[in-house]
């Protein structure tokens, strides 16, 4: 990561990823609050989606750097 544009790109990726993770986490919390008995399943699904998102963001970061 040398150029400034790269850094801006990285920032954009982090913003996007952050929004995504926030949405996932928020919705997961909401659904856990609504149905506490399904907490385990929701957590697993949340982690998987989070991991996929993370993979996407990291992929972009690596490609950009």
């Amino acid at each position, binding site marked *: 990561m040398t150029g400034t544009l790269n850094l801006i790109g990285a920032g954009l990726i982090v913003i996007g990823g952050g929004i995504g993770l926030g949405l996932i986490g928020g919705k997961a919390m909401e659904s856990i609050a609504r149905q506490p008995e399904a907490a385990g399943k929701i957590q*697993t699904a949340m*982690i*998987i989606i989070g*991991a*996929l998102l*993370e993979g*996407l963001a*990291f*992929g972009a970061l*690596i490609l950009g750097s």
Partner: protein
Amino acid sequence: MKVFQRSLSYIAIVLIAISSATLQASSGDEQHQSTGNPIDTKEEIQAYIKHHLQDSHDFVLYTNGETGHHVGFPLPIILWDGGLQVFMSSKFHHGETVAESNGNYYKLYHGKIYKTDAAGTIHDDGHGHPSNEKPLDFSITKSVVGMLLTGLLMLLLFSSLAKGYKKGPIPTGIARVLEPLVIYVRDEIAKPNIGEKKYRKFMGFLLTVFFFIWILNLLGLTPLGFNVTGNIAVTACLGIFTMVIYMASGSKDFWQHTLWMPGVPVILRPILAVIELVGFILIKPFSLLVRLYANITAGHFVVMSLIALMILMKAKFGAVGATGMSLVLSLFITVIELLVAFLQAFIFTMLSSLFIGMAVEEHDHH
């Protein structure tokens, strides 16, 4: 006063080193040996962290910054360069000298071995990279040592667990900790994702990979300074293994749905096939390997940077303040890293079993 400050920072380092990755407040990088000063500038710290994140050909536990003396042990170098070249890494003297083996000369430059002439000149290709020929390097590097250690540990632990069952159905001792983990991988990761019928075949791979990654991640948090799973070659190998396994075990339905998707206009089918194939062959393993690599690398980077804070902030906050701050912060991040170590092993195994589950799934024909 200076002696006091230095000894204090050494004590702090030892304290942190117990629970987190090491950063010796002294030079490990060959570039700085001539100066004989401890690392204390930003650039030097960055170079040190970068050096740590890379694989290395010798096992340095500790370096005395003032004398440039390394404490550690050399590792064997195995090169394929028109023939097998085997010698110990002590021949390089930590990159300071040129190693000679069967009439060939090799030089260690930024953690990589290049073929050189007797004087050890490194030619620059104009982009900051050496243009010297690189021999194929199958050395037992630090990472390989870490992997061998992990493999040995796993074999010992789990064969003892396996033997324990011969004595009685209820495990004792350390096996009590291991058994729930095995059951966890089986019941929470493999069974729900692959399916009750077919999971058994993949358990060997999933369990091995899970414990391999987990133990290596944890090993990276010890003061030994391993960074195995933060190494792109290692994660790439793991990702490619997963890819090969799910591609090889794909069911007829899987291939039909991938290559000639039913229920979609014929014109779209080849496009979809290409997208699906690229997804399965490139994107999925790539996301697997990059995730693990980036998480672990970032973790090590953050922990080491926080430890380095102690040196950078010493001027501002004084020795005690800087040390305390860096201790608290790095302890906090290390605890998070412990969680990440498990989480990444879990996610890798989880996604592997998810992809395997996609591949072996048999759809009901409609």
